[in-house]
């Protein structure tokens, strides 16, 4: 059970039969996205390909699970509620998703106030569009909430540490850039999966599914894809930082054997490879990050089946 989660590569090969749409590739966009999330100025192509594989596999699996949930409900489309249901276990990530949805509502409200044409269109189409996503989320969480924890999230004002760390990293990165680099950085930050709606749908092969996601569900999926990439970059940066042996680090002798194996292979490729890429994230970092994420450490981990039931630890939820 451990091996299904550990190597995205094996999962990728198993799903390669499905990925006839490999002509659709987000590799170039992913490279820019990784740069905007903290990677080097020119992320490695191999790393981007690997990240694409991981994200693709995880999203396809997520979609399948959402379709199952949706069938249980007896609905004809996958909607936001199904995805929220799948995320109910991890409060922090769910809260981040909710904040994202509210910000989307807020932004459309503001933009409407600025452009008079938008204002009129909105009035004409009926004014029930205001805070639509917030209403959906609130109604749904109301209905599944047994203990009141989920609803408490709406009032929760805690700082999201992961987001805070990402903001700080971006600030550090941009502090040393000059105007041209900064302009490039800003452009890459604007990239997202939601802007390439139809390409994203085809990439996930939505056309061949029985139950298809609706508009809000696609928005959430695009967000989850972006979150997965962001998580991967976060974890990979952490792994890379670990690899640098620091003098006086008391745990340097306790690094696991598999880790050293990855490290050595990375070193050998780097030695014969291009030295200039030494500050970009390597595929080995990503693999190690996924392995560590899926590996449940703890006294009872061999016996817990919560994550193993579907064989995949989702990075985004």
């Amino acid at each position: 059970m451990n091996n299904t989660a550990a190597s995205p590569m094996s999962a990728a090969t198993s799903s390669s039969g499905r990925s006839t749409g490999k002509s659709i590739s987000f590799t170039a966009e992913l490279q820019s996205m990784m740069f905007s999330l903290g990677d080097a100025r020119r992320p490695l192509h191999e790393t981007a390909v690997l990240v694409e594989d991981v994200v693709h596999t995880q999203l396809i699996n997520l979609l399948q699970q959402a379709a199952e949930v949706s069938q249980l409900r007896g609905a004809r489309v996958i909607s936001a509620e199904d995805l929220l249901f799948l995320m109910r276990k991890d409060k922090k990530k769910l809260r981040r998703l909710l904040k994202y949805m509210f910000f989307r509502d807020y932004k459309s409200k503001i933009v409407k106030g600025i452009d008079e044409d938008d204002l009129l269109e909105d009035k004409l189409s009926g004014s029930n569009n205001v805070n639509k996503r917030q209403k959906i989320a609130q109604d749904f969480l109301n209905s599944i909430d047994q203990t009141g924890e989920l609803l408490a999230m709406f009032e929760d004002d805690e700082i999201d540490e992961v987001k805070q760390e990402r903001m700080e990293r971006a600030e550090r990165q941009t502090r040393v850039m000059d105007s041209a680099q900064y302009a490039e950085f800003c452009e890459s930050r604007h990239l997202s999966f939601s802007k390439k709606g139809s390409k994203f749908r085809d990439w996930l092969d939505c056309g061949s599914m029985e139950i298809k996601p609706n508009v809000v569900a696609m928005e959430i999926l695009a967000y989850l894809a972006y979150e997965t990439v962001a998580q991967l970059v976060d974890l990979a940066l952490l792994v890379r930082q670990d690899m640098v042996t620091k003098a006086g680090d008391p745990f340097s002798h306790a690094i696991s054997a598999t880790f050293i194996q990855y490290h050595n292979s990375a070193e050998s490729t780097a030695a014969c490879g291009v030295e200039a890429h030494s500050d970009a994230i390597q595929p080995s970092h990503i693999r190690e990050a996924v392995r560590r994420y899926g590996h449940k450490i703890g006294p009872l981990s061999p016996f817990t089946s919560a994550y193993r039931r579907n064989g995949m630890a989702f990075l985004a939820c």
Partner: protein
Amino acid sequence: MDRNDSLSPFDQYLASPQGAMSPGIPVFSPMMHYGTGLTLQPIQSTDDLSTLEEEQQQAVVATGQLSPKSQQATQEASDPTPQLFNSQPLTTAPLLGTTPLYPSPMTPMTPAIPASEMAELVPQLHNIVCTVNLGCKLDLKSIALLARNAEYKPKRFAAVIMRIREPRTTALLFSSGKMVCTGGKSEEQSRLAARKYARIVQKLGFPIKFLDFKIQNMVGSCDVKFPIRLEALVLSHQQFASYEPELFPGLVYRMIKPRILLIFVSGKVVLTGAKVRREMSEAFNNIYSILKGFRKTS
């Protein structure tokens, strides 16, 4: 640090920095009276230094309050170098005299902004939304039939949409007699447009009054003319700022409700939510002093 020591005799004249926004900001507080803020500049010629020393002595002699004498000294110093000092009467005049002598090594040497440029920071209005009560019930169907440029789809929305070309605006007319007018580029234009719509409805035979004309929202923009590092701004002003570049390229800065500012990397700032022009100018001036600290230096 060396710099701090030399500044101590003049501390009494310095406004206490109300939370320096970010490293690299010069000594004075960004929340100062805006006229003084812009004219901070490290002096570059020795002539100025000599007048400043003279001024410092005068400042030391003064009892630690803003004395008219030192103000005059500043005025004198300001004559030969008008582009460096603001000619308006200043509330913190000694401050101007003392700060430039000790430019922080961390501060980028920003070019002097003459007082005339400050006036250029006049916000440009893009859209004004106003309401007026015409004072009588309106028969929307007949208005839609008789008036040109009128649209009425009762199933979708319960108001007549009317447009005029000069000034280019759009109005929503409700059966209660209230009207919303959008698209005006200034307060006078907006009022004129509202009167024109009222005249049209009057000509159709309704006993129109023009009651409670009120501007509900003004949208304006201006350009601070330097690039801004939004990542740093969102980090230090977290309670007010949200920035999600994948969703929207601008940073959303919430000032006193309901005013919202959209700040873009290029330096353009859009403000919405103000009801009078003065609120708009105030907001822009406040944000200008904040944004200077996050200028992208290349």
